[in-house]
């Protein structure tokens, strides 16, 4: 066990698990603590944590936050709104054909299938400290016009705490809907969050999942996405991080049967000393499965963005088509990008492409706009926005795309002063 964890957190973790009830979830949590003790917290010795060290940003104690009330700062018209404040469900809507309930480790209740598979201590820490699970079950053939929006909000009562929450979504055959998860720090200080989302897509299900993360000024923020795709199902996933001090996002998508398709896109826009590390694995476990991935990063000041994207095409997964691209824009010289596209192919009849680009705004592109009467700093702003927009467009939804653009521009101003002066 990692020394820091052993000394500092052992008592906290025992305390958090002291009053657990006797149910499936609490048993999973106890097992996870054993796992956590053997793994320790992840560090740079692990290849997939090479660029991120969380020790310095971890809270002194792993105190659990208190329940509270709060309102979101970002509203989507006509959305089905779920509020989770400090890791506890406070508000949920009634939607025909959609069953929403919470499960906690203190009360007895039935269980739903969950994926308890972790590579390292970050995932086990999430399980060990879990406050609640939000289970959403969508019936067969349900099509929702309006999105479900899950707000994860944090108030002062979560300051100096570690909050841990899991969303588990089971989408039955042929259902079709959009789900947004919006994580907002509000006025919590020195907060850390260890959250995860599971998506289970049955035959022919179509899910659009959008994860927005912002206003997490301090602490460690870990979020995981795990998706299991059955035959003919389609996942469009998009993660957008703007303004988070230290964000680690783990993505694992399993394409388990023919004609399953996943678009796993993302964007991070960083400034100051922010750090965002995305580690993505897409497994093609069956023949005729398809994936596309565009991950974009914009870094300014002293920020550091990392994208590691692995595509694995397993043996017998013939006729797979997979495309992956990581594109990054460095706005100031002191900002940093690490991009690692990785491809592991064990089948012989597949079409796979991957690549990464890292660059500044091109002089020729800037000059094109300047020669049309646009000032250099404004030209840089327009080009950086265009760069970002291409990623947002991948969401492919006529009302959500402009909404996400607005969400981003009200939270992150692309500062191009460094470019303008060079």
């Amino acid at each position, binding site marked *: 066990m990692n020394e820091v964890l052993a000394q500092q957190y052992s008592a906290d973790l025992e305390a958090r698990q002291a009053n657990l009830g006797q149910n499936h979830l609490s048993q999973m949590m106890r097992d996870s603590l054993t796992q956590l003790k053997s793994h320790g917290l992840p560090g740079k010795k692990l290849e997939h944590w090479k660029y991120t060290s969380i020790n310095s940003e971890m809270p002194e104690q792993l105190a659990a936050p208190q329940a509270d009330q709060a309102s979101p700062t970002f509203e989507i018209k006509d959305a089905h709104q779920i509020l989770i404040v400090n890791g506890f469900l406070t508000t949920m809507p009634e939607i025909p054909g959609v069953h929403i309930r919470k499960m906690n480790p203190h009360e007895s209740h039935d269980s739903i299938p969950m994926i308890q598979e972790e590579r390292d201590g970050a995932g086990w820490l999430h399980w060990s400290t879990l406050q609640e699970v939000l289970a959403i079950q969508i019936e067969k053939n349900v099509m929702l016009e309006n999105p479900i929006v899950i707000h994860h909000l944090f108030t002062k009562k979560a300051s100096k705490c570690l909050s841990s929450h899991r969303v588990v979504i089971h989408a039955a055959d042929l259902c079709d809907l959009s789900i947004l998860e919006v994580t907002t720090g509000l006025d919590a200080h020195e907060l850390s969050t260890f959250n995860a989302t599971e998506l289970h897509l049955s035959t022919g299900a179509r899910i659009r999942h959008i994860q927005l993360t912002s206003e997490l000024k301090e602490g460690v923020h870990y979020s995981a996405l795990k998706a299991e795709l059955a035959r003919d199902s389609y996942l469009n996933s998009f993660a957008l991080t703007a303004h988070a001090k230290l964000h680690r996002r783990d993505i694992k998508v399993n394409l388990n049967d023919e004609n399953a398709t996943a678009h796993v896109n993302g964007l991070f826009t960083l400034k100051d000393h922010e750090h965002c590390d995305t580690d993505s694995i897409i497994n093609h476990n069956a023949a005729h499965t398809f994936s596309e991935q565009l991950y974009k990063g914009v870094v300014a000041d002293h920020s550091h963005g990392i994208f590691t994207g692995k595509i694995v095409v397993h043996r017998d997964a013939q006729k797979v088509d997979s495309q992956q691209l990581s594109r990054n824009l460095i706005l100031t010289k002191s900002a940093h990008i690490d991009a690692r596209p990785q491809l592991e192919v064990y089948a012989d009849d597949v079409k796979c492409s991957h690549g990464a680009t890292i660059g500044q705004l091109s*002089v020729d592109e800037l000059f*094109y*706009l*300047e020669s*049309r009467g646009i000032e250099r700093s404004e030209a840089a702003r*327009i080009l950086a926005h265009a760069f970002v*927009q291409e990623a947002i467009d991948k969401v492919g939804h006529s009302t959500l795309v402009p909404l996400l653009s607005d969400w981003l521009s009200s939270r992150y101003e692309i500062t191009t002063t460094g470019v303008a002066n060079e």
Partner: protein
Amino acid sequence: MKLLEVKNVHARVEEKEILKGLNITINTGEVHAIMGPNGSGKSTLSKVIAGHPSFQLTEGEIQYNINGKLKDLSELEPYERSRQGIFLGFQYPVEIPGVSNLNFLLETYNAACKAQGAPIMEEEEFRIFLKKKLELLEMNDSFLDRSVNTGFSGGEKKKNEILQLLTLNPRLALLDETDSGLDIDALKIVSKGVNSFKSKYNAVVLVTHYQRLLNYIVPDFIHVLYQGRIIKTGGKELALTLEEKGYDWVIKESGMELHP
């Protein structure tokens, strides 16, 4: 009226000197064609006038008529040159995904209007203003709602450059190889656009490899550029001779060395 005067201009990109004492005078109402073999400095000349930051003026001066007075262009940033009526049509127009053509045109148009003290336009009015120009260039209205140059064919990009030319209505149009890569139909349309722009109040400089363009846009002067200098100037008939005989005879006549 004298619009532009390029006097003994030397310019370099990084350490390489490309223009080596170039002189040219352009008056309003004139069409000039700049021709010459590859690498002679044709594109550099138009970029230097428009103010591309990769090119440094090391000697000489470029003067441009602003409000009746010749002014040193080196004092103006590229965007200011544009707002004062200098337009550069690009050989390779840049794609700007996420910015609609309409917004781009409107923004540039209004920026120029503000700079010149003219009234700005709102979107609806601007669409009507563009309608005739689109028709002239045989461009569909849907072009306005597409992202600037994104996914455009070569011909569409060049037509879009001419649409910008007609919208901004500059006093000096520098068209850098606008004809290259165009099929004959697109060439005719682009030429029609340029001819409709031409007036006694403005001037056009065509940088081109091919005499073919000059069948459609008839120049008053043809300049042969070689090794960073203009080595011959003639009338429109010079293009035909160049087409027939190539550049070697001009270079010999000028006393310069061939293929140094």
